């Protein structure tokens, strides 16, 4: 943001001078998972429209054809990113009412949320693939 200035003093520290820590990772993952959710929502809505118009065969290669493995990976990633974004989003709501800013607790909650984010996708896919009607 300092383009156009002739000031030669160091700018604010760049990413390379920071060691990775948990709160930094959880913040970056929040944006990353949000963008993954954006792409997933587009894909699911397009699929819904195709279903309604009876044109779902147009993407049959992704649902039952030779690329269905790619869809399965995409949906597993999407259930993870939605779970992470939701859990970390609850933390954002807690921040908004002024709770949860202590450094030690923030680090602990970052790690806890990243670990917990794998539980809902594991449960959803376990029940979908083993106990589901399909």
């Amino acid at each position: 943001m300092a383009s156009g200035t002739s000031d030669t003093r160091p700018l604010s520290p760049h990413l390379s001078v920071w060691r990775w820590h948990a709160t930094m990772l959880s913040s970056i993952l929040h944006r990353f998972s949000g963008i993954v959710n954006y792409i997933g929502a587009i894909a699911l809505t397009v699929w819904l429209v195709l279903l309604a118009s009876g044109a779902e065969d147009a993407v049959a290669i992704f649902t039952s054809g030779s690329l269905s493995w790619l869809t399965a990976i995409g949906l597993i990633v999407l259930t993870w990113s939605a779970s992470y974004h939701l859990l970390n989003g609850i933390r954002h709501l807690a921040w908004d009412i002024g709770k949860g800013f202590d450094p030690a607790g923030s680090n602990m909650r970052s790690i806890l949320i990243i670990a917990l984010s794998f539980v809902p996708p594991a449960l959803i896919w376990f029940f979908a693939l083993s106990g589901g009607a399909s």
Partner: protein
Amino acid sequence: MSMVTPAKRINRLGSAKSGVHHFVAQRVSAIALVIALPLFMICLSQSGAPDPAASRAFFGSAWGALLTLITMSATLYHMRLGLQVVVEDYIHGTAMKMGLLIGNTLITYGLWLAGAYALIRLAVTG
């Protein structure tokens, strides 16, 4: 050297006065999604999707249609607000920024209209 005083130069160039609405709308849609999204994910994953007949039966049922409409509306609204912030944070070229912001609006609103139409059509035709 401009003869205009600093105060004159910045006069009326304040904020757009829409930031609070953006902030509140982001939080309210987030709370809606905390409730709706887990229900939607569980119901869709148990519906037999992506089998076409089972999926159409789910989206065509009263509960499936309502849950999908609520989740889809909150999601598209929330993700439009969210991606807008990402674009404003990282994209500084005017043409690219405006293009992405307008594209963000057109994609999310267009998908909402298309998705709502699809749900109505499935509810009517079965």
